[in-house]
Structures are given as structure tokens and as C-alpha cells.
């Protein structure tokens, strides 16, 4: 036959396969996306905390989105210590000023950035936190100083509603 015919067939086959792949992808997406956080999980996105009972030098732990959040009322010494560090020497360079809204209050997600364990308060080589799982040491600003964790402990979105209350999320 003429040379055009097989080409037309090939085109039709390729077009059919392409549509088939797109169709399969469209059908697969809801099945994949159903595993993402659902509406009820997202609804728990913010929480308010009363800080009036926290004494200087103490840390409280609250739950936010299933994760612990550390709120530490730092003493002046601790603030000075956190700010005396040479930022350039850090694994994940970040100044203490960038990490707090009010230097007295350090608010951060209490989850080790290595593999997600909860670090222990007032432990480790840098007077901050120590993760028992794989030995990461954090300083009093929650910055990674030693160990396998790649980044500083994360700061959640938060704001001071008034002097004694913060809203996380």
C-alpha cells in the first residue's frame, strides 16, 4: 500500500497511548491525594497558650498539630549566651534575633530535624537540648551545634495575642 498508511496508524496508536496515560494519571491522583492531611487534620491548625505560669529558666511543652512545641522562658544569661555565638561558625547559620520575637521567649517545634525524635531539655554539650536517638546537640537558641541533624529546630508561625498569651499556627 501507500507509505502514508502505517504512519497514520502509528500516530493513532501513539495518540491513544498518550490519552490513556493522561487518563490513568487523572484517575490515580485522587487515590494518591487521599493520603495527604484531610480537612479535620488541617482544622486543628492553631492553638493558644497561656504563658503566665512559666517561670524563667523553665520550658513547657504543648501539642500543636500532633507535635510537641517547646516554649522556653529564657533567663538573661541564656539570652546573652545565645547571642554571643559567632553565627558564621554554625552548621545552619542563623542569629538568635532571627529565631525569636521576644528574646525572653523561645518558641520552637520540639522535633529533632534529623529523624523526628523529641530532644531532651537542659541536656547536651551546649546547655540546650539533646536528642537521645542519634546524638544531636542543640544550643539555648535551638540551633544545631553537633551531631547528624542538618538544620536548627524549626520555628512555628506564632504571635503574641497579649503579654501572657501566644497563638501558635
Amino acid at each position, binding site marked *: 500500500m501507500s507509505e502514508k498508511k502505517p504512519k497514520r496508524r502509528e500516530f493513532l496508536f501513539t495518540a491513544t497511548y498518550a490519552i490513556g496515560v493522561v487518563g490513568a494519571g487523572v484517575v490515580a491522583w485522587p487515590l*494518591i491525594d487521599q*493520603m495527604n492531611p484531610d480537612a479535620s*487534620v488541617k482544622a486543628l491548625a492553631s492553638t493558644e497558650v497561656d504563658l503566665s505560669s512559666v517561670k524563667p529558666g523553665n520550658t513547657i511543652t504543648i501539642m500543636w*498539630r500532633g507535635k510537641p512545641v517547646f516554649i522556653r522562658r529564657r533567663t538573661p544569661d541564656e539570652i546573652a549566651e545565645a547571642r554571643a555565638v559567632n553565627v558564621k561558625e554554625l552548621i545552619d547559620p542563623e542569629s538568635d534575633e532571627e529565631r525569636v520575637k521576644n528574646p525572653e521567649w523561645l518558641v520552637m517545634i520540639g522535633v529533632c530535624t*534529623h*529523624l523526628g525524635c*523529641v*530532644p531532651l531539655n537542659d541536656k547536651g554539650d551546649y546547655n540546650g537540648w539533646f536528642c537521645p536517638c*542519634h546524638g544531636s546537640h542543640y544550643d539555648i537558641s535551638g540551633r544545631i551545634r553537633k551531631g*547528624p541533624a542538618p538544620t536548627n529546630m524549626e520555628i512555628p508561625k506564632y504571635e503574641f495575642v497579649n503579654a501572657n498569651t501566644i497563638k501558635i499556627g
Partner: protein
Amino acid sequence: MSDHEYTPKSKAGKWFNDRLPLLTLANHLTDYPTPKNLNYWWTFGGILTFCLITQIITGLTLAMHYIAHADMAFDSVEHIMRDVNYGWLIRYIHANGASMFFLAVYIHIFRSLFYGSYKAPREIIWIIGIVIYLLMMAAAFMGYVLPWGQMSFWGATVITNLFSAIPLVGEGIVTWLWGGYSVDNPTLTRFFTLHYLIPFLILGLVVLHIWALHVPGNNNPIGIDVKKPSKDTVPFHPYIVIKDGFALLMFMIVFAFFVFYTPNILGHADNYIEANPLVTPAHIVPEWYLLPFYAILRSVPDKLLGVIAMLSAIFILAALPWLDTSKIRSAVFRPLYKQFYWILVADVLVLGYMGAMPAEGLYLLIARVATAYYFLHFLVILPVLGFKEKTLPIPLSITEPVLGGTPNLAAAKNKESFKA
């Protein structure tokens, strides 16, 4: 499949077999010619099949009583242990069965390494085996999460967080795996679903594994190609069936010892504490069968590289048929490889021990050396050894060494007539 035509004796059998040749398959499986020198290390395939069936049956029965919900899972497991008739027995068999499964699979894998069973023409059998091994690890990990104890929760947290090491999309993938912002109820329910699914995937792959095995036939301790059927082979039934059965009984004694006398020795006491998202146990350790890989993960000081090293340690096995350049299969005829083989065995055991110890000081140093050696073995020693090693002469047949070099024709003839 079978080398000879098979016709069922009965008329009904023939009628059925013409429409669905199941009887031909059964005949192939019973007559399947097997090298007659297979030793007890070859019985672990059968033992592993037993382990899989045991896990599926006990798992199905446990699922009738277990509740996959973050608020109820822990209590439902205690309910199984205390209230359900024989629930303690079924759960202990299932929990220890996982360990027995891995014990058997490690022996099976190291047998393959010693006798070169992964080499041509058996690469596909080997690769399917590695996939089964990966699925086993996934199933074991997710199963361990289901009781929702402290080790369950924090093991799940640490392992899923491995994916956060992936640049850019890592965090998104972890959130997707969790179905939330931490390990929680959505994580538990999906793990239960997958834990239920994977054994059946494994079952399917086991069929392919055996199918691929039956194309070239079994390797054997001297690693030579065997003519089938011949004086070098025996039919699978009854010879291998009985031998496998005996080995299985021995294995079941070990299994029963753990189940009845020390059912919790392989677990962690922390897992009898209900999951608490605010407190991480002081010492998180995976189950014993994952320890070598855990040691590799921890011995690399960088998060992403640590994850890559750990995964490479598993995936490197899939490339083994091409990394080992030696044409000789069995270590029996490879004097140098035999020594390196035992060093590797020791190396993996050391890694396992280091995985259970805290990652600091001397432990960390030893773990690093052992990790480096693990990769050295596969990436340098094996490829070079194939070219450098002076191997011993291999016999022409299995019968030859037994009969002293010259094939005993009379004996061979007898066997042949017996077969026919």
C-alpha cells in the same frame, strides 16, 4: 515446564488436565530433578515458605480482633493477649514469626552468597529475592507500628523521617506518608492496610521466584551446571520433600522455644508503654534484623548521605550478579573468596551489634570501619577477585568426586534405568 510429556492416568484427570493443566504442574513439581548433593543450607527455601504461610494465617486471625485506631490499637492488642482464646499464642507466633522469617531469610541469602547462586543464569531469581526481602522489611516495619506502643510510634517517626532527607520534596512526601503533621491515626490506618497487603504481594513474588528457579534448576554446593534429569539429580519428591520436612521440624523447635519460653526477648519493653508523642524513649533501636542497616545509617554524619548509604547497602545486593566477576559459582573452589565471605559475615554481625549500641565513641568508630568494609567488599574486592583469584579445578559432575575421578559407568547406568 516439564521435560517430558505427562498424561494423567484417569479419564477424568485427563479431561480436566486438557482444560487446565494443573496435574501437569503437580507432576512437574513432584518429579522436578534436583541436584543430589544439596545440603541442609538448601532447606531454607521451604522453611521460608512455611514462615510466610504462618505469618499470613496468624495475621489474618489477629486482624479479626485488632482495631486499627490510635485510641484503641494498644488496648486491642492487650485484649488479644488477655481475653481472646489463644490470642496470646497467635500473637506470640506472629511476633516471633517475623524474627524467625528474617533468621531464615538471612541464612538463605548468605547461602546464596557462599555458593554463588546469584550468578548466571539465576540473576532474576536473585533480584526477585531482593525485592521480596525489601517487602519483608516494609511489612515487618509496618507490623511493628500496629501495637501503637512507644517503640511503634517512635520507630515509625524515625523511619518515615528518613524520606525528609530527600531534597525539595522530602517534607511533602513525609506529610503525605503520615496523612498529617506527625505520625497519628491516619498513619496507623494506612500502615495496617499496607501491612495486610504486602504478604500477598510477597506470596505472588514467591511464585515468580520459584518459577524462575525451575527454569535453570537449583544451584548446588559445587556450583556446576547439572544435566537434568541425570545421575546427578534426584526427583524433588520424595527426596527433597523429606529432607526439607526434617529441617523444617528442627527449625520449628527453635521457633517454639522462642514462642513458649521467651516470647518477648526479641522485642523491647518500651513497646508495652502506649505511644506518647511528647516523650521519645531514651534508646530507640529497631528490631534485630534491621540493625546492620541502622548502624550504616548512623555511621554517616550527614543526614542525606546516611540515608543514601543505608539504602545503597540493600540495593547493592541487586547488582551483585554483575559485581562478582568470577565465573566460578561455589566458594568451595574459590580459596580467597571463601575467606572474604567469612569476613563479610563477621562484618555484618559487627554492624548489627554496633546498631544496637549507642552511636558514640569507639562504637561509632567501629561502625564506620565496618560500613566502609561492607561497601569495599562489594565494590572493590568482588570485582577484582574475579580476575586475580586462582580458583581450584572444578569437577565435571556431582558424581565425579564421589566415585574418584572416573565416572562409574555401571552405577550410572543403574541410576539411569531406575529413573526411566
